């Protein structure tokens, strides 16, 4: 038996987008165990709910994370609306879906770029991020912010989109889809990419369910679960089918995310086609009293929002369980038995967002 050694990995590492620390137990070059630890960027944002009124807190919920910003605002608003029994206008629901799917596209393109960077495929990385700029420009045009959109509010949305903007989004999506094809082909067919991803970090469907994997990590193992089917916002009016793959390796996770990109393009087109005319928000009176658990599908997986109010303008408790929290145990499982050189890539395949996780 080879001598065991422990190698500290992170929180500062060239390949890690966010700080997570791992103690890797190695036998020669093979990883036999990994002990994760987090806690480098805790900001106490959940506690802040006691100091800011429930309408102000939307802005704080949005700032939990830069990439999932739109989703956090949406999840928080939906849960408060459920507590208060507010029926959001249909137009607002569709607008929420359009922005949410645009957010998914930008998150997945960001991840694809990071994956290419982790493999050392620099030109593919630059191309993915170049495409992402188009979506960010559309966000800038429609919401006024590239990353933090501040469009969701309790009772609806703050900004409407006119037909020029909706057509602009359709044009951008059309261009993006066309330009995305060669990039998708490279990710799925290129020799270099496949040699780094195929058969690396296999997670079986049973283990993925047991360990509580969510999002593309779970769907890549063959489980058909997508929180968008739970029916929040305007998703019940749209065609959502979970994108799955069966291999459960890093390549399958990449494949699921690429297919989800194209699914998001379709959803944006469908939502724009079906968007009704009408108000974008309803007036909110009174304070929330009661509690609610809300689940939404973030680009990285299922996120859970818990809200508890006692009739005052300050909520008693807000709890946010992010997809990365759920995906850390499956990540540790995939690390067992892999080569040390594959560790950065495997950490990346869960699409970690540590600032979300620590809040």
């Amino acid at each position, binding site marked *: 038996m080879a001598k065991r050694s422990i190698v500290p990995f992170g929180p500062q590492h060239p390949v890690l987008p966010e700080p997570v620390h791992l103690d890797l137990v190695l036998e020669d070059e093979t990883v036999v165990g990994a002990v994760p630890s987090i806690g480098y960027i805790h900001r106490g944002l959940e506690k802040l709910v006691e100091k*800011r009124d429930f309408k*102000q*807190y939307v*802005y*704080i919920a949005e*700032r939990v994370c830069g990439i999932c910003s739109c989703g956090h605002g949406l999840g928080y608003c939906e849960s408060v609306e459920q507590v208060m029994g507010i029926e959001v206008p249909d137009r607002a629901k569709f607008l929420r879906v359009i922005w949410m799917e645009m957010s998914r596209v930008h998150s997945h393109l960001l991840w694809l770029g990071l994956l290419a960077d982790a493999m050392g*495929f620099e*030109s*593919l990385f*630059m*191309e993915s991020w*170049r495409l992402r*700029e188009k979506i960010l420009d559309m966000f*800038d*045009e*429609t*919401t*006024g*912010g590239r990353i*933090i959109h*501040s469009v969701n509010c309790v009772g609806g949305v*703050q*900004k409407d989109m006119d037909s020029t903007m909706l057509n602009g989004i359709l044009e951008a999506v059309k261009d993006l889809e066309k330009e995305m094809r*060669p*990039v998708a*082909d*490279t990710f799925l*067919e*290129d*020799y270099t990419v*496949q040699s780094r991803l*195929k*058969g690396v970090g296999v997670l079986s469907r049973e283990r993925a369910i047991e360990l509580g994997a969510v999002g593309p990590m779970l769907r890549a193992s063959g489980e058909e679960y997508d929180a968008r089917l739970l029916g929040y916002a305007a998703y019940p009016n749209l065609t959502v089918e979970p994108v799955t793959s069966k291999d459960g390796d890093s390549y399958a996770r990449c494949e699921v995310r690429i297919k989800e990109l194209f699914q998001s393009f379709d959803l944006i087109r469908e939502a724009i086609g079906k968007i009704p005319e009408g108000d974008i928000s309803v007036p909110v009176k009174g304070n929330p009293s009661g509690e609610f658990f809300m689940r939404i599908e973030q680009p990285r997986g299922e996120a859970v929002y818990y809200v508890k109010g006692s009739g005052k303008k300050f909520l008693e408790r807000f709890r946010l369980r992010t997809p990365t929290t759920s995906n850390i145990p499956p990540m540790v499982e995939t690390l067992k038995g892999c080569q040390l050189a594959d560790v950065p890539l495997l950490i990346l395949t869960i699409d970690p967002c540590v600032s979300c996780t620590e809040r």
Partner: protein
Amino acid sequence: MEIEHMSKRKVLTFAGRALKNLFQKPATTSYPFEPAVYPERMRGHVEIHMEDCICCGLCMRSCPSQAIRVDRRAGTWTIRRFDCVQCSSCVNVCPKKCLTMEAGYTRPDTRKTDETFIKPAQPEEARAEAASVKAEEAEQKQQEKQKDCIPERI
């Protein structure tokens, strides 16, 4: 498994795109030589039109990052630009619509300084006129009150 996947593998799939990119115009703009173009809705920084401000303090109460301070007595409106998160919450609640969100980011600085706006002093004539209008209104109200109080004679 390896042999099965080998048939699907292609080499240099990205070469065409990479070559095309070499001869294309850069995707980025040559800022600062070209001015930055901001979209209409851009949330860059908050501007105030102090003449219309009534110092009600609603913006101060709605600010999630507590960047705004309003002093009603002194007639001042102060903002810490580096604390502002450009959420436009203050713009949405302003009853006089004197706050606006303008394009362009806050300029970098070496210190976090406050920026204070003072409500412009009204000229003497305008102030005297406003005072006389107020006095007249008060008098009218007083008279109406007295009218209400006097019992009708039968």
